[in-house]
């Protein structure tokens, strides 16, 4: 092949100009012109890819509602995060959904504060219970929302049935789907809001669930946690309950009583703290923290 550009260019031009446009090609060209326009090839090729991308995007955007595990408990939705300590649920604000699996051994939890929507699979064994400030919610397999504030709370049942057992000994109440119940009761005879439907036939009352008592060591650990979070009301409630525990020794109750005085003082309730510590000394004249108590009492009026 010649490497002279001008010479080769002339040869190429001659060859290209001699290329025939055959009658068959001409006819094909006419047919193509008269046929409806074909969609753009790039569009045809990209359309399936775009469709797949849209489907994937939608699938990512629509998050499936979490299903309960075999023996677990699911926070189906909400704006709370759950921290589990022992068998207590501390629900604090956050921006994502949380799966709370209590495992196969646990059968009860306690909601201290917050709002959460639950979805609980029906259990063949012991029913799951959720302890709130004024009773227990016995879960039979359902979806419902629990809201617990400092002194009151509410349950809204979406579907299924739950049973609410008052901790003051009042008869248990069965709440079907669509009903709600608030605690504490405004009046003794108005325990259930008007949305509650007619109660089903009465069933033999089940014994209240066995509350798992935390050990003294765990109680103290929890106390320090609450104090570090400046949650003095919760700490006071914890100590009040602990002081009444018959299974604690006298020394343990004395220590809890002393701690109650210090927490009262830290919470700003100085007068209550002084009164409590004076009572403490009367009850425990040889208190092991006497020096510390005397120092505190010196600042009391």
């Amino acid at each position, binding site marked *: *092949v010649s*490497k*002279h*550009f*001008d010479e*080769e*260019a002339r*040869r*190429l*031009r001659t*060859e*290209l*100009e001699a*290329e025939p*446009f055959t009658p068959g*090609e001409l006819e094909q*060209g006419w047919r*193509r*012109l008269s046929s409806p*326009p074909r969609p753009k*090839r*790039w569009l*045809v*090729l990209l359309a399936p890819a775009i469709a797949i991308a849209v489907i994937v995007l939608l699938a990512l955007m629509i998050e499936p509602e979490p299903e309960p595990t075999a023996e677990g408990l699911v926070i189906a939705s909400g704006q709370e995060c759950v921290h589990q300590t022992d068998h207590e649920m501390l629900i604090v604000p956050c921006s994502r959904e949380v799966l709370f699996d209590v495992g196969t051994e646990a059968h009860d939890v306690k909601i201290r504060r917050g709002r959460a929507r639950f979805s609980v699979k029906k259990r063949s064994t012991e029913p799951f219970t959720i302890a709130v400030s004024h009773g227990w919610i016995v879960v039979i397999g359902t979806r419902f929302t629990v809201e617990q504030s400092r002194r009151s709370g509410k349950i809204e049942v979406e579907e299924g049935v739950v049973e609410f057992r008052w901790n003051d000994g009042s008869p248990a109440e069965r709440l079907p789907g669509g009903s709600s119940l608030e605690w504490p009761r405004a009046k003794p005879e108005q325990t259930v809001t008007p949305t509650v439907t007619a109660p089903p036939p009465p069933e033999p009352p089940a014994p209240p669930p066995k509350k798992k008592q935390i050990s003294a060591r765990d109680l103290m650990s929890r106390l320090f946690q609450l104090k570090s979070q400046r949650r003095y009301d919760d700490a006071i409630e914890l100590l009040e309950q602990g002081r009444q525990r018959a299974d604690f020794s006298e020394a343990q109750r004395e220590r809890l009583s002393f701690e109650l005085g210090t927490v009262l003082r830290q919470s700003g309730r100085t007068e209550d703290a002084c009164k409590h510590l004076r009572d403490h000394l009367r009850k425990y004249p040889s208190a092991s923290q006497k020096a510390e108590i005397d120092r505190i009492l010196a600042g009391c009026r």
Partner: protein
Amino acid sequence: VFRTCLKFGLGDREWAKDRTHEVFLKLAERGAEIRKIEDLGGWLYRVSVNECFMAMRRSRTSSRILAFLALAWDRSEPPPEAKVQARRDLSALAGVLAELPAKQRAVMVMVHLEGKSQNEAAELLGLSKGQISKLHAKAMAHLASFEWEVAGE
């Protein structure tokens, strides 16, 4: 129209037929205004050059991606390598010109295969005379680098 496009396509008949089809579609879109075109041959030639030049300027990368997708979509179409080989069979020069960037290739086609002056090429391709001169010089340097004997060497 077909032969002009065949030169721009350096012997690729299918590409030239597609461009020819597009040119005649543009003509059909004019409808009754065709009669107002005084020099139909000249109009067709300008439209052909423009259509081929625009088709060449489309992104080389996207063309390769689409060619790959087209290959996956339609197995009956020959692979791009086969098309290049076909052009090389036609002429060694066509193979070298096919590797040039679109603008340089268009200038070389206009000047050396269509026999136009650089001024005419500038007018038809919508480029300035200075651009045409530079593009031509670059293309000739590219050919020289492949041991082609070009004028002025």
